[in-house]
């Protein structure tokens, strides 16, 4: 991921010394001028709000009056009143949302990876209608998440839903299932809709990696009569592994932030609440800016930690194998 940044060679015209350095200097000045607007805007709309969120997490701010608050230290996270522990870290709903998010991420990304590889292998084969197929699988990805959540809400309706109707007709279930309301099925339902929506993204990233593989390896394997399944595990999978890891990391980071899908599909239900849904509920519905910001800060730290680990791992890999 970082290779292009680390190794990028920028063309510096080779010319007479004096002129070259003044040219270089003026270009460097231009570079900063060109970058400045973007940096200022990003500092304003990303850096500053993040800093304020972290600050709010140490205050008792209320959404109705954001300018009137007091610094209360770590009390939003953990506080002891008369021997009783309070705060975010003692809230079973918060831990429930952490568990839901982690479970959702692990299960949905695993399923999406396997299905993504299958779809990518199919799209990598030459068959009539391949272009059309590629366009078709892009459709779930392009449909707004809110819209797809509502479409599935309707399909999964406990009384009039088409999914229950199909399963009843096929004799797979005896009675209609209340997909999104039943604690046993709710999170699986969320996973299913997420798989439907984001497998295309996974498949396209894997497909791009597959198409960069050299063809002669497969020719050799075919001549030697190696079984295709063996070729896949011995040749294809190791070769696409770097791209696969990038795709999995991207997806996992996305899944850890999940909000739209769960909010629309199951509202603020405890059974499926993700960390982002929990934070927004505290922040907006309960107006508890302090507690909500504390939850937001923890989410940020969790994701930042994952990014740092990934980047470190990426750097180690690049160190071994300079491109």
């Amino acid at each position, binding site marked *: 991921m970082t290779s*292009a*940044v680390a190794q990028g060679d*920028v063309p510096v*015209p080779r010319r007479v010394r004096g002129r070259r350095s003044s040219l270089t200097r003026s*270009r*460097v000045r*231009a*570079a*900063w001028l*060109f*970058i400045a*607007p*973007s940096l200022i*805007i*990003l500092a304003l709309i*990303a*850096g500053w*709000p*993040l*800093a*304020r969120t972290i600050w*709010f997490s140490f205050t008792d701010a209320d959404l109705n009056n*954001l300018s009137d608050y007091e610094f209360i230290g770590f009390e939003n996270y953990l506080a002891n009143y008369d021997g009783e522990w309070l705060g975010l870290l003692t809230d079973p709903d918060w831990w429930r949302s952490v568990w839901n998010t982690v479970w959702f991420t692990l299960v949905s990304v695993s399923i999406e990876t396997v299905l993504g590889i299958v*779809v990518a292998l*199919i799209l990598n084969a030459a068959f009539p209608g391949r*272009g059309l*197929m590629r*366009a078709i*699988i*892009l459709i779930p990805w*392009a*449909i*707004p*998440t*809110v*819209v797809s*959540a*509502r*479409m599935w809400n*309707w399909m999964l309706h406990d009384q*009039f839903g*088409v999914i229950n*109707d199909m399963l009843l007709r096929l004799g797979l279930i005896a009675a209609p299932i209340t997909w999104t309301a039943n604690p046993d099925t709710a999170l699986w339902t969320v996973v299913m809709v997420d798989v439907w929506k984001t497998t*295309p993204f996974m498949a396209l*990233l894997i497909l791009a990696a597959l198409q960069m593989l050299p063809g002669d390896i497969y020719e050799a394997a075919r001549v030697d009569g190696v079984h295709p399944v063996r070729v896949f595990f011995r040749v294809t999978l190791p070769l696409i592994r770097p*791209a696969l890891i990038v*795709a999995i990391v991207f997806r996992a980071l996305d899944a*850890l*932030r999940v*909000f*739209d899908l769960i909010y629309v599909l199951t509202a603020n239900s405890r059974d499926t609440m993700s960390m*982002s849904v929990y934070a*927004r509920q505290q*922040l*907006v519905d309960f107006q508890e800016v302090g507690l*909500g910001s504390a939850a*937001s800060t923890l989410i*940020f730290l969790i*994701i930042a930690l994952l*990014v740092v680990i990934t980047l470190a791992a990426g750097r180690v890999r690049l160190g071994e194998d300079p491109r």
Partner: protein
Amino acid sequence: MKVLSRIGFWLLVIAIGLFALFPFYYAIVSSFRSGAELFSVAYLPERFDLSNYAAVFDRQPFGRNILNSIIVAGAVVAVSLGLGITAAYAFGRIAFRGRALLLMTILAVSMFPQVAVLSGMFELIHSLGLYNTLPGLILANLMLTLPFTIWVLTTFMRELPKEIEEAAFVDGATPWIVVRRVFLPLMAPAAVTTGLLAFIVSWNEFLFALTFTLTNERRTVPPAIALMTGSTAYELPWGTIMAASVIVTLPIIALVLVFQRKIVAGLTAGAVKG
């Protein structure tokens, strides 16, 4: 054996196609049905009744919602591309100290969870007097689109051959002229790709739009659809919701079908090549 595996392959292709398309197909079928008809399941369209489509615009300012979405997404794309191309030129073509670190910082912003900036952004938008306005949403959405626009355009910028701007510099052109006259035309295909991705991101954005708007007239499409209710909370107008879903999905599907290759190129440039 060969025939069998051929059949298996095609069954798999058909299954994937059906799985991908069925929800949208079913939304279309449902959008033509209303009232008690919706209490039974229909797999095939029975008639072509547009009353749900009329109801979407009657019962709430859905036309206004669509216009809001177009304004927000259009402005977000324009600003992202304008800032993105100049920044990408600097990142992609000029060597300067701290470049790699800055680029990593910008990439890190695109990993920010939206909810992590929510309370700070709420305060910012309030203090700028932009609460419940479209400029507020445009500003907030830039956090989502600007980082990857810069990132993807920079990777495209690097791939252009070295000699391109040398001749112009020898002729005494300033960097600004080089960006405008030399790189802007060359970057047009890449700009279309990133612009499309930015448009889709902004068009689909929900959390900011839900939190930073108050009245139905100012909402963009996603919160409008998410908050659509019937006469009572328990009686959702599913036919109308499906009609609204079809309306806002059709333009996106048209974009995807027309620009399929470009979108895929942009997605993979952002992830694999970078």
